[in-house]
């Protein structure tokens, strides 16, 4: 049995999982939610290593990968989920050496909240602060049970003295409501103007309930839902931050923006520490340039501005729109279940283990708290090691060509 295992099934990163193995296969993931149990699975993953569909050694595959990038003029390095921060750091180094674009899943799924935090800042807290301190918890257009099953039980359990406010309004009305709320809690005399309309009525009803809290937690999803029929206003994240900041005048408040699994927050943090930017970076000029809109992976792929892709991580967890574009470019895919993923017809396909199941290292919880990963079963080569080897190869080829 392996105890205190961190689950990367979602961004909650519960670290109290007990993995029971039988004959090298995961038999039970105690304490895990349904989503977590699915994420751990039985721990069996493929261990193939292929070049143009033929099984080869890892060394041969890496040599072929280096060849592909030696020919490329507009490479893209993409951080997919389920890799450790250590693997992400190696991958960012490869992008730097190649003069490549570097991006992660974040640009396709959570860009508005990243950009809003760059414009406004944030009023936030780690999840334990919410658990220990929040007396008012606002679930903003969110049922955590769907994509974050243990969020409430671990970070905001029901208790005496804790009030839950469930806000469920149409996506089109969110920003107006948040903006009015922020104005009211800031003490602006909005009542005198007496505007009418649903946003005003709702905000007037909510404001005193928020202001009654000594420590208000506003919980909202930062991830775009895959089946989002009603697209969110791009100003939503900014309005949520503004409300949380405004509440810190009359009381204390924290916005908890939820992120999905696979160490996505780790990718943001690693890119930020090494380049200064959390996503959508371009090294083409020899240094990092921030291109959050036209330089995001999806936009680059869509306009044919990628002639070689290095994907590191679980390809199957990349959003479908991005994946469809990726399937059209020459590529090296290194990560868990690469050979069974929609990108398995790539030039080079190397299966690795899954961070947190077969591989150790570090991952960041959705609130940027770093946690150790404890492998519970053995698996194929680890992603960080494969990326490190590829980095060495790529750099030595570039040094040779520079001479």
């Amino acid at each position, binding site marked *: 049995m392996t*105890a*205190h295992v*961190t689950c990367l099934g979602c961004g909650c990163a519960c*670290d*109290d999982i007990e993995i029971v193995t039988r004959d090298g296969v995961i038999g039970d993931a105690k304490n895990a939610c349904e989503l977590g149990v699915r994420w751990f699975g039985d721990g069996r993953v493929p261990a193939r290593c292929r070049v143009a569909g033929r099984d080869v050694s890892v060394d041969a595959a890496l040599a072929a990968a280096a060849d592909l990038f030696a020919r490329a003029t507009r490479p893209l390095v993409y951080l997919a989920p389920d890799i450790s*921060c250590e693997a992400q*750091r190696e991958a960012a*180094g490869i992008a*730097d*050496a190649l003069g490549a674009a570097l991006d992660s899943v974040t640009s396709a799924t959570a860009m508005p909240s990243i950009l809003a*935090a*760059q*414009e*406004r*800042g*944030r*009023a*936030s*807290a*780690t*999840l*334990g*602060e919410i*658990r*220990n*301190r929040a007396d008012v918890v606002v679930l903003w257009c969110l049922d955590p049970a769907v994509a974050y099953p243990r969020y409430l039980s*671990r*970070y905001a359990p029901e208790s005496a003295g804790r009030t839950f406010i469930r806000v469920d309004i149409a996506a089109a009305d969110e920003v107006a409501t948040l903006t009015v709320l922020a104005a009211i809690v800031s003490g602006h005399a909005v009542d005198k103007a007496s505007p009418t309309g649903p946003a005003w009525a709702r905000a007037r009803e909510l404001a005193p309930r928020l202001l009654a809290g*000594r*420590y208000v937690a506003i919980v909202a999803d930062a991830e775009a839902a895959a089946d989002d029929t009603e697209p969110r206003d791009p100003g939503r994240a900014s309005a949520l931050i503004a409300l949380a*900041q405004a509440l*810190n005048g009359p*009381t*204390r408040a*924290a916005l908890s923006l939820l992120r999905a699994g696979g160490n996505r927050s780790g990718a*943001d*943090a690693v890119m*930020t*520490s*090494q*380049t*200064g*930017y*959390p996503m959508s970076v371009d*090294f083409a*000029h*020899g*240094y*990092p*340039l*921030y291109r959050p809109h036209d330089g995001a992976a999806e936009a680059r792929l869509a306009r044919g501005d990628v002639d070689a892709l290095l994907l590191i991580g679980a390809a199957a967890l990349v959003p479908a729109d991005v994946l469809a574009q990726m399937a059209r470019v020459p590529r090296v895919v290194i990560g868990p279940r690469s050979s069974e993923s929609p990108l398995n017809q790539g030039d080079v396909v190397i299966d690795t283990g899954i961070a947190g199941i077969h591989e150790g290292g*570090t991952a*960041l919880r959705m609130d*940027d*708290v*770093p*946690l*150790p990963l404890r492998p519970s079963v053995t698996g194929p080569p680890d992603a960080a090691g494969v990326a490190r080897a590829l*980095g060495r190869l790529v*750099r030595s080829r570039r040094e040779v060509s520079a001479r």
Partner: protein
Amino acid sequence: MSQLRIAGGIVHDPANGIDGEVRDICMDDGRIVADVPKGATTIDARGMVVMPGGVDMHSHVASGSVNLARRLLPEEHDRDPMRAPALVDGEPPRSGTGGTVPSTFTTGYRYAGLGYTTVFDAAVAPLTARASHAEFDDTPIVDGGFFVLMGNDEYLLRQIDAGERDRAREYAAWLLGAAGGYAIKVVNPGGIERWKQGARDRTDLDTAIGATRVTPRAILETLVDAGNALGLPHAAHIHCNNLGVPGNVATTLDSMRAVGGRRAHFTHLQFHSYAAPDKGGGWRSGARDVIEYVNAHKEISGDVGQVMFGAATTLTADGPVEYMLHKSSGRKWVNVDLELETGCGIVPHTYKEKAAVSALQWVVGLELFLLSADPWRMVLSTDHPNGGSFLSYPELIRLLMDRTYRDEHLKRVNQKWLGGSALADGIAREYTLNEIAIVTRAGPARLLGLRGKGHLGAGADADVTVYVPDADRSRMFATPRYVVKGGTLVVEEGQLRRAPAGRRLHVRPSYDAAVTRDLKRFFDDRSTVSFENYPVGTLRDAPAALDGERGSGR
């Protein structure tokens, strides 16, 4: 590692009583040695100034909050991209971005390019220590470590409330090792917890923290005593209550008296030396009161936290300070409350010559330097990036060494609150090269208890910086001709050529195992991180030795 001789330079090695003597400095296998054979690589340093590598004892370069600041500042990074340096061998060169909070690799390169070879991050929440170690791993050349935030941590406050000071000390010992930190850091003792509870008023030495009997005074006593009892190489490193508040000089002096007679370090004192004589909102310099106290008390030390005009990023565990700054400047603001431990606040800031508060802050810092009687105990810092970037150190050195330049600059700044200040009345003092060597390397190394740093005696780490003398001291200190780190020539002819990995500086005091049984219960009850997942584990580099009977633990 190869042997190296820096021949014929004018050596300033104040720790060994050498003040401008022409000498050879020899190195072998990463250490300073008495001599090396004739055939060793030789650098002709005739006419050049040779000092130990710089030691920054208070900076913010590698932490979760630093990384949030980086993320907040894309506009700064856009203006200051950095190509990968042309390294001749070894580690792969990396590009990055600068601004007031540079990316990791760029931070290492730029510190080394400035002649600094050791850097401490002064504020790391132990909850996020793993991220700090990862960032230091990506910060090349410099040896690095960090101070562990205490003084608003729930477990500690509970022990103090219960009168369990021995257990508080054992907890501090455990926590330093669990985080892989180097020293105890106290930030606004009790005041961050009060901010989390919603308080907006001042926190003074005897203000009760919430409904407990705990006071900032008790927190300071407990942690200062813990640092000394554990034989830590560096004293408890204290950021006092009421940072940035006019009139806070009283709090600062109260804090110093509270730990009277005991070894303690008071940091960025510039931000804590404001008088408020007229109660009408006016500010005045309180530097003279603070520095006179420090001058008269040999057991305490400080660093200045100088403010430099231009762009800065204020970034601190002291959340309530950043709330105030955001309210007054209207600039973007980050607040993150960290469970059970501390806070984090970030606001970009610009210090303007024409702004009354900025001008006063600039003057207060310079007064602390210029009225200090003992450079070994009042050392240089800008609290990077709070008072200004570490890249402004050369300009600060010029201000200290060149009275004419300083007085000219003083005329240009807002005079509103400068009346009666020592600097406005005229201070003739000019720092000597030897004093600069003390406040930028020998002094901080001694205060940190780094026996192998800050000097050039046999056995010291082979960290050496060679400058070309220049009447413009800013130019001289901005561009060293040679920098050697651990015996490796990292800067040659002013160009960064090698970037070896730095070492991690940390301590691992032994502790009474009983505290971990109690802590396990506390974690199970209060923490969202398993007790077993909290410690960072074994680090690559061995922990530093401790003074006294208490040895290093597991």
